[in-house]
């Protein structure tokens, strides 16, 4: 029954509305809610702007739809029925990095992909947050010894939360994301990590044998990532 006032559904907010109306003039009863009621007769709250923003940020996050390897399957299950990450206000996957504020790194990062991942991360709007999902994103996981494998996402971008597992169960990922939300709401930030692998212009690299050898193949203003495997953990 569309013409039934909302209070018959949500319960009466009458006493409050009465007082408020007396103070502020008439308000359409559809805008009433339990939350409104909780604010009492004076619908104002006093808080620090930053705190309020942090609370808003943590309560509504958009995830980047970003699948890499096996962990992304469990990530899909986390979004989907049964686990339904969106219950916590954090599970709407966006296809474009411009619309997302959290990126989950679900898988193994290899040499060819790291520059792209950095690029995708750079394209996200500030403030942005990173959740590492699984051992691969943390350290290279089972493939750490591989000739082509980056030893963890932290070698390329800063990371806020690590969720261990191979793959972590959806419950674990939910826990990790909720933990991140909590931290954001409280305004806590992660220590900035040292990032050994940067995107830089080829011409800016220090010259050595390898650079000289590739000079004919790569333009000086091309972006490159240089891996010094011997220094990796």
């Amino acid at each position, binding site marked *: 029954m569309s013409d039934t006032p909302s209070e018959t559904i949500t319960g009466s907010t009458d006493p409050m509305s009465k007082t408020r109306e007396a103070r502020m003039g008439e308000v359409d009863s559809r805008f009433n809610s339990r939350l409104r009621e909780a604010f009492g007769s004076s619908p104002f709250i006093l808080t620090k702007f930053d705190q309020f923003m942090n609370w808003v940020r943590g309560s509504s996050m958009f995830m980047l*739809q*970003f*699948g*890499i*390897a*096996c962990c*992304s*399957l*469990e990530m*899909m*299950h986390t*979004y*989907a*029925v*049964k686990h339904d990450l969106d219950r916590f206000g954090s599970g709407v*996957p966006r*296809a474009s*990095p411009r619309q997302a504020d959290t990126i989950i790194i679900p*898988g*193994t990062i*290899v*040499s*060819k*992909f*790291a*520059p*792209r*991942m*950095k*690029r*995708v991360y750079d394209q996200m709007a500030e403030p942005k947050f990173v959740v590492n999902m699984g051992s*691969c994103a943390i350290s290279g996981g*089972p*493939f750490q*010894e*591989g*000739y*082509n*494998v980056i030893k963890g996402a932290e070698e390329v971008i800063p990371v806020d939360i690590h969720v261990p597992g*191979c*793959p972590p*169960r959806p419950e674990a990922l939910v826990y990790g994301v909720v933990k991140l939300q909590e931290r954001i709401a409280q305004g806590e930030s992660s220590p900035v990590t040292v990032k050994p692998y940067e*995107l830089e212009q*080829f011409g800016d*690299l220090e010259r050595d044998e*390898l*650079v000289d*050898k*590739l000079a004919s*193949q*790569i333009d000086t203003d*091309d*972006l*490159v*990532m*240089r*891996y*010094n*495997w*011997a220094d990796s953990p």
Partner: protein
Amino acid sequence: MSLERPKRQQYVTEEGVDYDAIERLLGEHVLGRETHLNAEGFVIRPDEVQDVLFALRDEAGFDHLSVVTAQEYADRYESIYHLKKYDDPTQEVSVVVPTSKDDPVSQTAEPVYRTADWHEREAYDLVGIEYEGHPDPRRILLPETWQGHPLALDYDQDRPQIVTLAEHQNPIAEDHYDSDTETMFLNIGPHHPATHGVLHLKTVLDGEQVVDVDPDIGYLHRCEEQMAQNGTYRHQIMPYPDRWDYAPGGLMNEWGYARAAEDLADIDVPEYAQVIRTMGAELCRICSHMLALGTFCLDIYGDFTAIFMYAMRDREKVQNLLEDLTGSRMMFNYLRLGGVAWDLPEPREEFFEKTRDFLDDLPEATQEYHDLITSNEIFQIRTVDTGVLDPETAKQYGATGPVARASGIDYDLRRDDPYGYYPELDWDVVTEDGRDNYARLLVRMREVEQSARIIEQCIDLLEDWPEEDREIQSNVPRTLRPDPDTEIYRAVEAAKGELGIYIRADGTDKPARFKIRSPCFSNLHTLPEMSEGEYVADLVASLGSLDIILGEVDR
């Protein structure tokens, strides 16, 4: 045709391939003969590859190049072409092409089998053999600027590498237009919702039409072959197959490794364990096909809609069963050489009941999918007669699995190269003649029904199995050291097609060469055939219908 038959028959006897007749056919090309455990290998000169392969294909009927294995020995390089027949995959022959250390050049096989194109690029990339006359001699998995060949013997893993980030410009930037032909260059991926992971398609468009598409893979090349070569046979390799096709094709992949290693080391598997393996593998197949179905519809309808959620719901059910059985939702590590890790979960009745409940609900779920998907007009418009792949082309590209069966190729290793408990059970191989995206989906949906039949029979068998005969593992030595210089190539039917493993033993407890024949790799290679000249939207549908898992494509 009628003339050809008897001719091909010359090369076959009651026991299989008549290798002496093949040797006579190849005549002077043969420098020597090697015996691999799966087939005889004929050693030939590197500049006569095409003559030999043409003879084997056209005269003797070996129309399926499974895989090309490249490896380096202390004194030479070697490429092995593993040939089979689509009609009877138990008929195999290997062609071994050694090349010298200082001049590792061998003739390309691409004119004979199109699929050799990618396989030889990979061989060049990882091992360093060059193929003369190859139409496209680039690296395939590693970046163009990579130094050295990682599976070569003298590769130094610690040397620095530089990787470029090219073509990151806005796709409609001016220099992406070619003003003469009015085509436009478009990057799809490597981060794109429709590429099912990290695949990069370099596409050239003329308006809405695809002029050229070049799949650029290797964004998930995580050195699976190196990892397997670093592990010991008995326990250290088994966790990795779970991570090739993580849809999860876990148990099917593990079986691929187990089958090769068991035949290599001559290990028996108790019958009871075979039944459990068969049941587990089919559960994985259902799970995997459900993912294919869900994501395919995600590609076609474009959002996380009901079908995707339904498919995920059914996957959850299967994953629960698999978790009860193996202890893990995805990464099972459940098979052991010589059997399985442990028996069914106690109480057994509960497991049987849960599984039966799932199977009982399945017909209804399938009907729901048919209502939502296959009988939906929009879906039909998008998929019928798009992405057509005719059978001859599919064979040229080495396509297998649902992709081949949807083009009418009746090829299923569970029946044609029997293993496990499949021959004792009652089930059918599903084929469709549609050759299009729609047919590929139908094949998967019908295969789910067949898998359910298999599981049902396995459950019945397991329930009645006498308690004293429940042997889950045979006796296997603590350390396995297969005889030096034994080589084997064995394949199983995974969810995506023929998953083959080549192992060469060198007398130690680790393989000297471990090569994975990934079905997705070959299937993805057909994408340009299916989509060039079609609309770009159909390209996305075709890609979805191939059901690739990048972990398996790139390994």
